[in-house]
């Protein structure tokens, strides 16, 4: 792989950029692989990357029904934070956040990680106490956060309205090293690095069945024929239930649509991410200048990648109240993604009842920020059968009643 750099660009500029090579190959599938990942989204590609990088397993195929990065990886509001309450969540999200810090260099692909800070607004006394609890938990978890005063909030976000008549801002949970990254670039950067390690990223190929022998996986049926493997990672947000059904087990998951929108681009006016959970909205400004806005999920099962307007309305109403200046901005585009919601709204990274089949799903509304940590832990789970990062996220927790409930402190949004 030829490295990307300013010098490479200068070299190519002289020949009209005719010399750039493919970022990733487009190979024919082999007969079998040491491991197969179904789903070339961020989580799947990151899993493959760390299988190779941390465990030397490079005879790997990543099979994708559509195009790599075409699911929720490219459909989210790009927020990265790790100020979670429960230990298990804080561990995997903080691992991810740390890996984001060096991802551009590690992958030689600029994913534009921008640690501009994340504020979660406290707008009721209950929320104040919840975030103070999170700050205390984070202090022990090695996650740097602090609970800040309304005045500090205003200093960091001058466009905010602290004195909304309904929900005044009473403070905020501030994670200075949270931020955003360029979502597509994360998938592309991992894909390029995986391809460089000799892994096969097989796009436009649908898995149609999981073949088992004696309760163990031996391969997958695909639209391009059978491909053998003894280790199968299912990482297909939004369609996990469909794949689990093929493998012969059921998941505590429902798929719903989550919506987001952007405004037209404007010059920089907000240099951090603000989340307002009481009123259901969050907002940041992209490098292009668009205000990127996320809201709530529909409550009904939905596979259409579009949602109802009233959710958008609720979110925008809340944000106009929180940031009055956006009233005269215009909505440019709205879209939806299909998210897997589990029984406790926390993800599943787990072995399954089928030997050799592993599942990584249920990230709900919070998957993007976890990508590298999820890949790191899931690769370890697939390679070794155990990872401290994923240990608490097993499927067995639902039977045991051992939940990882983040709604405890932070309301709904991720």
């Amino acid at each position, binding site marked *: 792989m030829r490295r990307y750099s300013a010098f490479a660009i200068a070299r190519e500029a002289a020949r009209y950029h*005719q010399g750039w090579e493919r970022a990733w190959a487009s190979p024919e599938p082999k007969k079998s692989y040491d491991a197969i990942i179904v789903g070339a989204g961020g989580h799947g590609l990151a899993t493959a990357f760390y299988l190779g990088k941390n465990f030397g397993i490079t005879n790997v195929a990543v099979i994708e029904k559509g195009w790599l990065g075409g699911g929720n990886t490219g459909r989210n509001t790009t927020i990265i934070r790790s100020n979670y309450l429960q230990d298990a969540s804080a561990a995997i999200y903080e691992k991810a956040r740390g890996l984001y810090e060096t991802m551009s260099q590690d992958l030689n692909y600029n994913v534009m990680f921008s640690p501009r800070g994340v504020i979660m607004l406290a707008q009721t006394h209950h929320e104040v106490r919840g975030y103070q609890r999170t700050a*205390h938990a984070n202090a022990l978890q090695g996650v740097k956060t602090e609970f800040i005063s309304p005045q500090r909030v205003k200093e960091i976000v001058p466009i905010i309205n602290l004195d909304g008549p309904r929900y005044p801002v009473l403070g905020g949970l501030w994670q200075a090293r949270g931020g955003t990254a360029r979502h597509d670039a994360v998938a592309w950067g991992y894909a390029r690095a995986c391809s460089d390690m000799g892994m096969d990223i097989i796009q436009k190929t649908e898995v149609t069945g999981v073949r088992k022998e004696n309760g163990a996986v031996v391969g997958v049926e695909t639209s391009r024929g059978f491909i053998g493997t003894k280790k199968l990672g299912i990482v297909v947000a939004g369609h996990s239930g469909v794949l689990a059904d093929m493998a012969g087990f059921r998941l505590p998951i429902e798929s719903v649509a989550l919506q987001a929108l952007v405004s037209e681009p404007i010059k920089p006016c907000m240099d951090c991410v603000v989340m307002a959970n009481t009123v259901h909205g969050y907002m940041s400004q992209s490098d292009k200048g668009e205000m990127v806005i996320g809201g709530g999920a529909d409550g009904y099962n939905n596979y259409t990648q579009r949602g109802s307007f009233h959710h958008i309305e609720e979110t925008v109403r809340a944000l106009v109240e929180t940031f009055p200046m956006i009233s005269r901005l215009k909505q440019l585009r709205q879209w939806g993604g299909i998210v897997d919601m589990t029984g406790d709204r926390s993800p599943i990274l787990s072995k399954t009842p089928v030997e050799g089949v592993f599942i990584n799903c249920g990230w709900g509304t919070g998957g993007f920020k976890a990508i590298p940590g999820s890949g790191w832990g899931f690769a370890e789970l697939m390679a070794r059968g155990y990872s401290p990062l994923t240990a608490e996220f097993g499927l067995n927790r639902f039977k045991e009643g051992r939940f990882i409930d983040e709604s405890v402190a932070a309301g709904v949004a991720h």
Partner: protein
Amino acid sequence: MSTRLSSGGRLIDRSAARDFTFNGKRLTGYAGDTLASALLANGQTLMGRSFKYHRPRGVVASGAEEPNALMGIGKGSRFEPNQRATTTELFDGLEAESQNHWPSLEFDVGAVNNSLYKFFPAGFYYKTFMFPRPAWKHLFEPIVRHSAGLGKAPKDRDADRYEHFYAFVDVMIVGGGIAGLQAALTAGATGARVLLVEQTAHWGGRAPVDGVEIDGQPADQWIKNALQTLEGMDNVRVRSRTMASGVYDHGYVLAYERLTDHAPEMDGPRHRLWRIRAKQVITATGALERPLSFAGNDIPGVMLASAVRDYVVNWGVSPGDRTVVVTNNDDAYRTALALHGAGLAVPAIVDARATVTGDLAEAARAAGIRVLTGTGIASVKGKKAVTGVTLCAQAGEGAVTEEIACEAVAMSGGWSPVVHLWSHCGGKLTWDAEQACFRPDHDRAPTSHDGKPFVTAAGAADGVLGSADALASGSNAAVAVAQALGLSATASAPSANDPHETPLEPVWIMPQGAGPAKRMKMWLDYQNDVKVSDVRLAAQEGYESVEHTKRYTTLGMATDQGKLSNINGLATLASALNDEIPNVGTTTFRPPYTPISMGAIAGEARGDVFQPLRRTPMHAWHEEQGAYMEPVGHWRRPYCYPKAGETHEQAVHREVLATRNSLGLLDASTLGKIIVKGPDAGRFMDMLYTNMMSTLKPGKCRYGLMCNENGFLMDDGVVARIDEDTFLVHTTSGGAEHTHAHMEDWLQCEWWDWKVHTVNVTEQYAQVAVVGPNARKLLEKLGTDMDLSAEALPFMGWAEGKIGGFNTRVFRISFSGELSFEIAVPASQGRAFWDALHAAGAEWNATAYGTEALHIMRAEKGFIMIGDETDGTVIPQDLGLGWAISKKKEDYLGKRAQERSHMTDPTRWKLVGLETVDGSVIPDGSYAVASGTNANGQGNTQGRITSTYHSPTLGKGIAMGLVLNGPDRMGEVIEFNKVDGTTVPAKIVNPVFYDPDGEKQNV
């Protein structure tokens, strides 16, 4: 230079001058002008700068698809960035400024010149700016962010108002061109409720500009008659300046009406968002002209041929004295003829096609216009304005055959139907190879709740470009829709004159064999600076899916959302991949069609009416007293009542002590109150609560715990048995709706044969807690027909009777540990009763107390609070509430869940009291630290604080918390963390700090 023609302009009123400013310069236009036409009339062809390279940009279109001429308009609290000059109607006093440049539009230091932009191809930022690591955030990103963005951010709170409007119609017709008008005439005649909307201020679309004759009369006349007919129909509504922005599931349509943008002096809301439920939708949204990809096609002065025609015909504006027309289809000849007719020079029509024999071409030739076939533009000359073009053979690589001096170029690459609304909700497209465009696939229309199609395309939006055919298409669409609605309709459309046209030939790049150097100068997306070379680079690097290409190059992601660039980009990608255009596919069309204001989306809901506020009958009293209020659900409750000079903390302490020492009054009206009634009420209550409720005697109260089916504690409260069949359930404040819904869920969906009825009566009663040693004296002073003595009405009893003339229900329950009467009165009497209590209680210093005093007093007593001691992960067994869990009952909601291994795990943290060793207050949310770290390197914990206060009664810090093996560790001192890394030592104690034997409440 562009200028105003001495005559013509069907939309302007030359007798009505309009003064406006552009970048501070005072200019004049006419009523009926758009900002774009007025600027052109004043010779202002440079209107903005592009996003990435800050290249000079002029207006390229005349309508909603405009990507370049974006302005900041207005001032202060009425400033709005990114307004398209082409859709901004001119008014007196309009103030516009151009965007995205520094220091000025004419001289922009951010401009990347021709030699430098080679270094900034598609996706260059993914390949660089990586070292040193902090440089992205601190150096590169700020530069990128400041050079990106378009308009300035508004600073102030919006001074305008917005509103929502609801409509229910049988047929929604989008687009007021001739197809839409004809569809409305046909649909209106059936008696169906019809709503016809048009995004501009004018009806008729392109037909009047193109000189169409309908039924032998000028299009304008037919349009006027059609509108008159429609306005005469009671079942038809028509709205101009109203853009249908999105079609949503099951026939939901949003439309965006701009009420005062064109006339800011008018009263009323600025925008109105129509929320429409339509049984059927007809999209007669027309078509958009495509640019052609030739070198230098972004230089100001290069415009769409249709836009040039619009400026001449509609606004009497010349784009320049000499305009070269370049095309691959006959429509652009209309532009040449219009220019010629206005007395302007058309040095040549450059047509990529080898032979052209249509009526329009013949007319052009007859007018003496030079028609060059098989020819393309090799390059456009000029920097901030077009100065000329060089020509070449379309089939070749671009060897210049001729140079022509000109001031404008009118280009046409054919027309693309506006399929956005068709596609928003799942309608699929088909590739029309003949017209080189995607158009709606009639067999795969969007479907509604009944599985049947509910969107029908008509006219140019359906790929029907001729006038006569468009009229017929409009009528046929209306007939089809009427039939779907079960109405009878007859198709009838007027005739129209359409010239014979030579078919279009797809031209995606000009000349066909242009090399890399030329491709780097062919713009696809003008605003985002995406060129043919960028799309080809994306394909070369493996970004082969149309979504990859779009995201890698930012093609179609500008504020026009690819209205001009998408098809050309797709074709370029297909060619780079050696694939067919339909195989490459399109990106997804998402609402809104054109951007709509956030203000309109939010509607009326802002400020005080942001969200409905629930008020207790005593709410006004609290406000009169200057109470500090806190949101509790949708209620506001007094947190405390600070007196002059008091801090909140001082007020809370005063309220606690006054209550404990004499008499406190609490507005407890927010407490949830639900009646559960029926022969099976007792059985139902036993399932709802963990303890036995069916054995409760009428006249008595019992505290109970309610769990969800997952075992977690959900709500708690006191239940009073009114009679054999009737229970009154008290829930937490804000918990009533949820609890009532929970009851109904189980009654309707699981135990539907049980005879139980529930009613939420929370707002029917005001409730006051009369608390403190003097509570009984106060009630007796007011006069009562009840015996309120401890013997007659003991703790956990209730009675009904009169107090001070008020009808009351009195509950002997206490959340403070003091002698306490919770008294319910009809809501209408709440304020009067509250006032009477205060008046009569003055002699005992009756003190209103708020939620914080309530919380402190309950914590002093070790009573749990839902939301503090519970957080959705806590079960009653964690809280030492085993006594409230029936061992006898076979079942209750949550019982099975509580048998799971993690729920019965002896290492679950359990509730204890905590006292700091030094008397300080443990911070809220603190965790009890344990030694060592876990497998992920996180500090181990052994408990956490759930409530923590300074107790004014005891004069020290008290807390409740969940601690590992806590109840077995009484007296042990453990450490609680602070965020600064230090810890606070605290002793594990009994959680009942105050009056552990309950002597005070039992008097």
